């Protein structure tokens, strides 16, 4: 017992680097390589404009993961709430000063850079919830007051992105947040109860939805409603995937994608491109890679001593899972088109940076898996 509580010397950078889960790094690189190949094909066999930048971002991203892993875990603990509130403020600011793109205000121009605060909010939410459950006495996890607090932490950004309006991100926040509450040990009855109330309140929520969001759901339920509009994308995507078959049409040979059938084929619909050209084998291989990454992250979570590190790993697994499953379900017509990118594969800087940040936090938790953060390391609900 005294041995366990005894002094542990801080690990050196070399030991920390040795503690990195290189399997995860390899998986990330492999998934990003799928992205580079697909983006090369999207540009009709050209590294510009997408593939080369995607490759560069992936390399920088892996460097970010390693860099974040070298930082002391307490640093992230201290940063958790401040980053959450800063991003919450940024999200609140978007409708006031943000720039509009494709009918939705999601972007903040800051010092010449366009940033999408909602992308980083996913990471900040994981961080904040991890920080919360690190602090909370496990015995009180299911007390109503202590269940309500994380609910508010989740609800605030969900409401803000719904205003933008960005249904996909709102679903993602809610899913990740609620799953983190579950994994932290909140009594399952809460979830069942909420599901029941949610079903009852669904009509009210429906009213709050934007017309185009309602339309998307309606069309999803009955694609015939609008074969040339929002249903058209899914129809084209299904045709492209279906015609790819088991082995695909071959790299650079996808007719549907190459003939400009697909909308947003470098971002949201990149999976279609990939599935058409590489067939089920290629598409399933990518799904397997995601599954392996998720399993690795969960295994890493279980090996951590502190609740904080566990939550960070579980959160990263959740983000990868929710992104990937929603995106793929979307392009094969299982869920409505909500505009969620395929993690590490879709082209786009902000979304990719956010994923790398989440993985960096997870890796930092894993590197410091033996560190026993005590509850009194953080003094109160709102920290120091």
């Amino acid at each position, binding site marked *: 017992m005294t041995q366990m509580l005894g002094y542990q010397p801080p690990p050196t950078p070399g030991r920390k680097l040795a503690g990195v889960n290189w399997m995860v790094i390899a998986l990330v690189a492999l998934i990003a390589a799928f992205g580079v190949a697909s983006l090369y094909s999207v540009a009709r066999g050209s590294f510009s404009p997408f593939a080369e930048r995607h490759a560069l971002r992936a390399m920088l991203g892996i460097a970010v993961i390693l860099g974040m892993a070298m930082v002391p875990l307490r640093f992230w603990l201290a940063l958790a709430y401040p980053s959450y509130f800063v991003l919450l403020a940024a999200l609140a600011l978007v409708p006031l000063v943000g720039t509009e793109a494709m009918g939705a205000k999601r972007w903040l121009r800051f010092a010449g850079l366009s940033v999408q605060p909602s992308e980083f909010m996913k990471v900040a939410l994981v961080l904040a919830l991890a920080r919360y459950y690190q602090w909370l006495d496990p015995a009180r996890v299911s007390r109503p007051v202590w269940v309500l607090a994380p609910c508010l932490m989740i609800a605030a950004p969900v409401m803000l992105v719904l205003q933008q309006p960005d249904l996909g991100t709102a679903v993602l926040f809610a899913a990740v947040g609620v799953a983190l509450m579950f994994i932290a040990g909140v009594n399952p009855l809460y979830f069942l109860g909420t599901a029941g109330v949610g079903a009852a309140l669904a009509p009210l929520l429906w009213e709050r939805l934007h017309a185009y969001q309602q339309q998307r759901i309606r069309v999803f339920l009955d694609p015939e409603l609008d074969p040339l509009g929002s249903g058209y994308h899914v129809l084209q995507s299904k*045709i492209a995937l279906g015609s790819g078959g088991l082995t695909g049409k071959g790299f650079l040979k996808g007719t*549907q994608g190459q003939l*400009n059938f697909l909308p947003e084929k470098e971002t949201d619909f990149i999976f279609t491109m990939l599935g058409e050209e590489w067939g089920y084998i290629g598409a399933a291989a990518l799904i397997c890679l995601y599954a392996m990454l998720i399993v690795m992250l969960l295994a890493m979570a279980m090996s951590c001593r502190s609740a904080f590190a566990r939550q960070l790993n579980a959160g990263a697994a959740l983000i990868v899972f929710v992104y990937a499953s929603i995106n793929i379900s979307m392009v094969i017509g299982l869920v409505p088109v909500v505009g969620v990118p395929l993690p590490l594969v879709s082209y786009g800087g902000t979304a990719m940076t956010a994923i790398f940040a989440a993985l960096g936090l997870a890796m930092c938790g894993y590197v410091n898996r033996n560190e026993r953060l005590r509850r009194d390391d953080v003094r109160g609900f709102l920290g120091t």
Partner: protein
Amino acid sequence: MFSGDDADILQRRRFTRRALILGGAKLGTLGLVASQLYRLQVLQGARYVPLAEENRLNIQVLAPRRGRILDRNGIVLAENEDSYRAVLVPALTRDVRATVALFARIVPLGIDQQTRIVARARRQSPNVPVVLAAKLAFEDIARINLFAPQLPGVRTEVDSRRRYRHGGTMAHVVGYVGSVERRALDDAPVLRLPGFRVGKSGVELGMDDSLRGRAGHVKQEVDALGRIVRQLEKHEPRRGADTMLTIDTTLQARVLDRMSQEKSAALVALDVTTGEVLVMASVPNFDNAIFTDPDVSRELRRLQTTQHNPMVNRAIRGAYPPGSTFKMVVALAALERGVVKPRERINCEGSYTLADHVYRCWNRNGHGASDLHKALRESCDVYFYELARRTGIKAIAAMARRLGLGQTFDCGIALQKAGVVPDPDWKRLRLGRAWLDGDTILTGVGQGYVLSTPLQLAVMTARIATGLAVEPRLVRAQGPAPSKAPVFAPVGLQTEWLDAVRRGMFGVVNETGGTGYRARIGDGPARLAGKTGTSQVSRQSTQRAAHELAWEQRDHALFVAFAPTSQPRYAIATVIEHGGSGGAVAAPLVREVMEELLAAEPESRSPPFAPDEPSRGANEARQG
């Protein structure tokens, strides 16, 4: 009681349990997604393959119809002639050769023609159509459409060609269209359409943007046979605006007829009240109708290699030394600087000496004591050598630019030359040498480096005649609405100075001893004021008579004029290349054109406008 460690262990166990549950759910979901994908790609894949084959999105760019070009009286100069043609999109047929062979049974095609089409289809991108047959009769179209199901990828379309009328008269002004030469990737996609034509010269190029219109597009799904399954969206093209020119074709034809005896010459006539260019003639000329001929490139090469390239519109692209017609510029610059008074006399003894260099007057015997009026009338060189020296090159250059020289005009016609208004900066930049006093002296009589086009000289004359900054224009109206009559700002010269110069120009034509006496139109109110110019091409020309010299070494003959002197309405400038003396050759031509202009019914033109200043000036001129 729990120790902290026990609680930790319990918490960790619970976490592991929940993580396993969640992990299982995730893997289950991904498995479900993968199984759905399997169903879609493998089990139902066979169903989607033909769908993908049939289901091709086809975005077709719809070319806009080019606007017509009309003359000021509505005579059509350029229009579009439609014909039908059949094209084949190779990507939409499985067997190009078989389709072409089948097509040949409907519209007869020779074997070698067929092989040529097949070869072309293989050479280019399968999505770019190849022409199967052009200029189809209506029955052919009907037959092709009847057999359409057997002819995958074949479609009929309208082929619009440019057709020029009155080409022999208007080719230089109207210009011509041609296929797009350089295609940048980011250019408008309409430029990539086979057979799309853009303006290459003249108004066709100058007004290309508005003539071209806006391309439309149609987004449609076509099946494997090239048949349209459904139209997704369509944006109609917007046809180009018709452009009405200011040129009077009939008058221009007569002017060209009169000029045809010259080897190489140009004439510009404009309405000084509106800036409208009524005549822009250049010989030798050509007929732009040849550009609708398929053998055009051969014709083009022939034209361009002829000695006096007829393709060059000399009215805007011929840059000539203005010679003595530049003397008005020098006079006005000197008057404005106050270095001379109109009545001041300068003695001419036939030559002028500056720093050991001797500059000759065209009259070796000298003009004696000359004031501005006499110097202009008799075109005394020595007077203007002295004026140029007193004024300085910078003021002369500034005045030249103010009067319209050394610039191109935004008037609807492309490829104008700016000519040269030299000054020390220009010489240093272009020739790398310092400006010499001798350069100023030569500039004083419109020789040396100064170059101007007939259009610029006409504008200069109009500005002197009206005292307003007349801007030339070749486009009278665009689309249905006629353009508003422009209001020109004053050019900023005192009436007193302008009148002095106008009086001198009056003297040139109407007083004995005037170098342009041959341009005189009697004593009526419709009299003409002008200025001759004879610009040196070769040094020998000063020593020998014109007929002794080879044609290329003879002087250019120039004449600029405005009329009526009482109320200026028209300004004309002409250059006859190697014509000899301006007074002998150019002045009579201008007089004839001016007579034509004045004789034509004034009502058919824009209403005259009577500014106070020029008319007052002209009245004084008549007294002088």
